[in-house]
């Protein structure tokens, strides 16, 4: 199998500060890869490389090769809009638009030029079903997304990302702002989505990484310390730092 995301010797700087150092990694399709590590270790910066979300920050410079789906995404002339269609993202805090539930899902379709009303309706329903939210919201699609609970809002954001049919979904601590029940629902959802999508998830929660991911990458001070099969990492970490981190000696 060929990896869907490959990074080679990736360095990332915020002005003078080097946030990522020579990261080499390959992510396989239809797997869940967890990025773990203490705060400030660069895992979020790394995640945000894949849909070029770091572009929005002033003073960012990137070197190295980042290949997504066979394309060098930092080469000149790349279509960022097309890239972001392919690589969806779910953020740390639920961030629905101040629009109706329906319009939140339809947004991605509309900005990508879909105008067929029937198609949008179908897609909204399908995405909500995929995100296991349809049953809860089908009678209030015209209500504001803010009326949903935090967990529902986050699943709405996942549905919103799914609506534009990405092949990769980036999740930046998607459950960190949620209660345990909502977290469990999100994790279930991740497990379901794995069949059709490649998921890269940043998490602070070690148990969560252990539960949902196939592969785990441990970052520390901008370096990729260890990357491998989740079971391996959690049971037989090769590096001392990894072991200290996952056993909770620092974090």
């Amino acid at each position, binding site marked *: 199998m060929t990896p869907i995301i490959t990074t080679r010797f990736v360095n990332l700087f915020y002005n003078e500060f080097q946030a990522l150092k020579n990261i080499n990694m390959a992510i396989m399709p239809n797997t869940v890869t967890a990025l773990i590590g203490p705060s400030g270790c660069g895992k979020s910066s790394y995640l945000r490389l894949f849909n070029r979300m770091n572009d929005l920050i002033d003073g960012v410079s990137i070197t190295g090769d980042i290949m997504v789906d066979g394309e060098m995404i930092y080469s000149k002339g790349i279509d960022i809009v097309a890239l972001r269609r392919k690589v969806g993202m779910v953020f740390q805090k639920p961030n629905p638009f*101040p629009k109706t539930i329906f319009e939140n899902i339809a*947004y991605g379709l*509309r900005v990508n030029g879909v105008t067929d009303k029937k198609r949008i309706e179908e897609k909204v329903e399908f995405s909500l079903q995929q995100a296991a939210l349809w049953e809860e919201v089908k009678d209030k699609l015209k209500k504001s997304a803010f009326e949903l609970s935090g967990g529902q809002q986050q699943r709405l954001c996942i549905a919103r990302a799914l609506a534009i049919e990405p092949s990769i979904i980036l999740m930046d601590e998607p459950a960190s702002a949620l209660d345990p029940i909502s977290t469990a629902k999100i994790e279930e959802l991740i497990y379901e989505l794995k069949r059709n999508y490649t998921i890269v998830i940043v998490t602070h929660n070690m148990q969560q990484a252990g539960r949902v991911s196939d592969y785990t990458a441990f970052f520390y001070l901008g370096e990729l310390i260890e990357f491998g099969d989740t079971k391996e990492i959690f049971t037989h970490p090769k590096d001392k730092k990894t072991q200290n981190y996952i056993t909770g000696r620092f974090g």
Partner: protein
Amino acid sequence: MKKTLKKWLEKTIEGILFLSSTITTLTVILIVVFLFKEGKSLFQSTPIEEGFVLAVNKANAAGNLSANQIKNIFDQNIINWKELGGNDEPIFLFRMDDLSNYYTDEELGENFEFVPQRTNEFIDKTPGIIAFFPSKNIDSNFSGKILPIEKTTLKQFLSEKEWFPTAQPVAQLGVLSLILGTLWVSFGAILIALPLGLATAIYMAEIATKRVRNILKPLIELLAGIPSVVYGFFGLIVIVPQIQSLFGLPVGETALAGSIILGIMALPTIVTISEDALRTTPNAMKEASLALGANKWQTIHRVVIPYAGSGITAAAILGIGRAIGETMAVLMVTGNAAIIPHTFLEPVRTIPATIAAELGEAPQGGMHFKALFALGCILFIMTIVVNLTVEFISSRRKNKISH
């Protein structure tokens, strides 16, 4: 000891703060009460010039006349009493000066001591007469009928079109054209300032680099600090001649000139407030949009602007508020004709400009003076409505954000 001193100091400061707020509040209330008291007195008086009366023949059957009717009589638009519900009798206009056309100097007396008597005589023998003369010339056995003049009513004040407060024999106090002039100019100003201001705000909030923004923002705020008379001067020297030659008008002082100047003056308000509103759009919202494959413009158009919508509305309304109350610049460039405008290329007269231009020549306590105060009340109410609207919108906005 030290403790009591500290306590005492605290109490004193508290007292001073309380006093300051009380004085401020009282001042505001005092000004409003004063304004409305003076304004209200207009509606307790008749619009006839003080010390004068209008009289008709005792046989005249016409009833109360309004200021407008009297004006039409003296302008000879109404020439027969039957038009006013009286007998079929042509109207005969008579002013004090006319008396000498009918009587010799001897008949009027060496010191005009017979004037009251002659006036009475003349009114008595002329059935269609309407006489306008000083009340001191009412004869002791006056046989005519002093015409009762209706008091100015609020409805008349607001709906009559003619503003001619120094007209004789009765002042024409219709402010409709002034109100419309004010709204017209302010509306035009916002039509100019809103697109320009909003575009600038979007540029500063979303597109400009930090450096450009740091130059641009103080520069625009500087616009707010320029004295309005300077704007007026600029308008008079630059904009007015341009408009005149561009549209081939007899005069360049038009509503359009006022709107342009007011639009420029409202820009800082609109830019600053809407930029602040645009910047409140959470980054998470913008990121969400971009992550869904929206480009920068789609994000601005579909997320940032709707999110800042109420803030932008508030900016526009505050801009209107600024325009409604502005006096000097408007006075200088709008031509000040108290007519109801039909296009932007006609001169108009606004309420503040009217007050500023006329207060100096209105005798204190007189009809004209009171009318200007009543105008001030209208202006006050207009701005209060504007401010309340903004208040209402921004409270709704707070609710939205607290979700």
